[in-house]
C-alpha cells in the first residue's frame, strides 16, 4: 500500500506556523480603530463583486458567508498582508493580486455597514430567541 509523502504529514505544522506569523503581522495592525482606508471604494466594489468574486464566499455585502468581513478589524496593511499570504485551507493566498487592488477592496469593505440590527429589533429572530431560550431552559 502506498504511503503519503512526508510533506503531507508536515503540512499542518507548517501551516500552523505560517498562520501564527501572518496573524501576528495582521493583528499588529489591528485594533478597535483600524485606521483609514486609502483605496478607491468604488473600484473596490467592482473588484470584490465582478473581478475577484470575493462575494462567492463572503456575500455581496461582506456580511454573510464564511467568514464575515464586517466589522473589519484589520488595518489596511494587515489586510493586504493576510490576503496575499493566507495560510488557511479555506482561503487561498492571493499572492498575485496587487496591493493597490487590495487597498481598493479594503476601502469597499470599510464603506459597508459594519453592524447589523439587534436581535431584539428583528421580530423573526427575537421570536426564535424566545423559543430557543424556552426550549433550553432547565
Amino acid at each position, binding site marked *: 500500500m502506498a504511503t503519503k509523502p512526508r510533506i503531507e504529514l508536515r503540512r499542518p505544522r507548517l501551516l500552523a506556523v505560517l498562520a501564527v506569523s501572518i496573524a501576528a503581522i495582521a493583528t499588529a495592525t489591528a485594533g478597535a480603530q483600524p485606521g483609514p482606508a486609502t483605496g478607491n471604494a468604488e473600484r473596490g466594489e467592482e473588484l470584490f463583486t465582478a473581478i475577484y468574486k470575493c462575494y*462567492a*464566499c463572503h456575500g*455581496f455585502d461582506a456580511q454573510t*458567508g*464564511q467568514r464575515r468581513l464586517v466589522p473589519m478589524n484589520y488595518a489596511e496593511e494587515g489586510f493586504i498582508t493576510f490576503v496575499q499570504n493566507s495560510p488557511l485551507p479555506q482561503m487561498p493566498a492571493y499572492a498575485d493580486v496587487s496591493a493597490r487592488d487590495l487597498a481598493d477592496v479594503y476601502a469597499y469593505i470599510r464603506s459597508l455597514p459594519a453592524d447589523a*440590527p439587534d*436581535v431584539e429589533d428583528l421580530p423573526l429572530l427575537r421570536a426564535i430567541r424566545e423559543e430557543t431560550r424556552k426550549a433550553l431552559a432547565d
Partner: protein
Amino acid sequence: MTKSSPNENEIVGRRSFLKGAAVGAASALVVPATTQAQPTPTGRPSVARPTEADARADFSPPDTPSGLPIIASPASDYMVDVLKTLDLEYVAVNPGSSFEGLHESIINYGQNRMPEVLTVLHEEAGAAIAHGYAKAAGKPMMTLMHGTVGLLHASMAIFQAWADRVPIFAVVAHNRNPTSVVNRPHSAQDMGALVRDFVKWDDEATTLERFADAAMRAHAIGRTPPMGPTLLVVDAELQEMAVPDRSALHVPKPTVAAPPQGNANAVREAAAWLVDAERPLIRTHKFARTENGWNRLIELAELLQAPVDVGGYGSWQDFPSWHPLYGTGGRDYMPDVILGLEQNDMVGSVRTARANGGRTISIGSEYLFQGTNIHDFADYAEVDLPIAGDAEATLPALIDEIRRLAGREQLSRFQARREQIAAAHRAVREQELADARYGWNASPISVPRMIAELGRQIQDDDWAIVSGHQFTGTWQRRLLNHDKHYRYNGDCGGFGIGYDTPASVGGALAHKQHGRLPVAIVGDGDFNFVGAGAMWTAAHHRIPLLTLVHNNRAYHAEVMLVQRTAARRGRGSDRCHIGNVIADPNPDYAKIAQGYGVYAEGPIGDPAELAPALARTLERVRAGEPALLDVVSQPR
C-alpha cells in the same frame, strides 16, 4: 404563475394532449371569418371537437391482432405476485421495452397498487426519489429500469444511496438473447457489473423460481444494516413466458433478519467506561433510522447527561436540535470518553479523546461492511473499543447496562454536568442568532433570512425538511426546532449534485400519507441536474412539496477552488468565474416549474417580498400540490 389541475384519473387522450399546443399556438393562428363569428368560450382551446372515431381511438383498447394467441397467464403476473409481498408502495418507472411485460402486469394485473407506478422523466430522478422516500418512509421503494441505458442514467443516484447507506429495491431488465439493433446495446453479459461497486448485492433471474428467490434476498439484504441498494436483473423474455400451471409456482414469504447487535461483553465494557467517565460525549452520524432510535438516543443522553454531537454533512438528525444536551458541550468540555454511533469516521474522535487522556468507543454496522471499490470509508482509526453491530439495535442493551451500573451517586454526578452542557448550548444559539442578523435586509436575500421567514410560516404545520443542508450552511438546523425524528431527511451521502430536488419529491411522497408539510431547500445547481423533471412527477402525482430554490447563480465553492489553484500557479485570479457561474442568461426556475405544471413564483431578490410569496406558495402546498419559489440568495 400558472397551474394545471388535471383530474386524478384523467386519461391522457387526444384532447388533453392538444390542450397546451392549441393554447400556445393560438396567437399564431389566422382565424377564418366563419370561426370569428362564433368565438370559442374563453379559456377553451380552439380545436375541433373529437369525432366518435377519435374518441374510440383514445379510450378503447386496440383490437387483438388476428392470429396471435392471448397469453392468459404471463410470467410477469407471477413476478407481480412476488413483488406484492414486499411492502413496496411505489415503483419509479421511466418506460423501457425490456420491461414492458412487467410494466403491463403491474398496472393491469396488479391494479397499479403495491406497487403503484410513479412516472419519472429520468432514471436518476427515479432512483433519487426512491432514496429520499426510503429515509422518510423507513422502507425501500422500487425503481424499474431499462437495460444499460436506464441503469447508467440511474447509476449516480444509486451511488448516492449507497454512500448514504439507504436501501433501494432496484430492478433492471434486458434481453438475454438480444435480436435487434436497438436491444443489443441495451443488453449485457453481466448487467449488474455496471453498478456492482455501489450496490450491496445483485443477482440475475433467469427462471421464475430464481426471480422469487432473488427478490426476497434483495429485499432482505438491502434492509439489513449496513443497508444499501440492491439490484435484481430480469430477463425480458422471461417476463413474457406463459405459465401453464400457476399453482406450481410458490410465492415465498419475505423475511428480514433482525439487525445485528453488538457483542454483549463489549457492550458491558462500554457501559462501564461511560458510567466512570467525567465528561462523556456522544457523536452520531447515520444513527437514527427510526423514531425508536431517536427516542433511545434521547434516553441515553439524558441518562448519562452527556452532550450529543450529530455532526455536519451527511449526518441524519438523530437528536432534537433544541435539546439542552445537543452539541459538543462547549469548548471547555474536554471529553474523556467519546461514544461514536454509526460514525464511520472516528479519526477526529480518537484524536480528541487522546488529547484529553481519554478513550473511544465505536458502535457501528460499518464494521460489518463488505468490499467496495468506492473509497468512502474513512481513514483507519485506533478506536479503543470498537463494536460491530447496528447502533440503534444495540442501544437498548447499552442503556440497560448503564442503568444497572449507575447508582444514586453516579446519577447525581451525571446530573451535575448538565447545566454546563446546556449553558454551552445556549451560548451557541445566541451566537448563531447574532450571526443571522448580518445581511438581514440585504438583496440578494441572506440564507438565514430565508430560513427564518420559512420557519415563522410553518411553525404551526407538521413540517419536514426533505432536502439536505450541504449548501445552506446548516442554517435550517440552527434556526428551526428539529423536535421530531422526521424533521430532517439528511444529505445525499456521496457529495454529488443532483440529489436534493428529486430526493425531496421522494421524501414528500412518504410524508404525504401522514399529512405533513414537506419543504425542500435546493441549490440552483442541484435543480438543474434532473430536478426540473422531478417537478413534473410531483405535479402529476399530486405530491405536496414546497421547493425553495436557493438561487445563488453559481457553483460558488468551485470559484474559490479554481482561484486557489490559479494563485498557486501565479496565473491571476480574475478569470476563475469561467465555468463556475450560472448567469447570462439567468435561468428562470419559476417558469421552468410552471412549464411542468407546478405553481411557482420568482425570482425574488427583495427580502420584503419573501414572506408574502412564501405565504402564497405554502397555501398551495397545504392544499395538496407542489409549489416552487425561486429565491435569489446570497452565496452562503
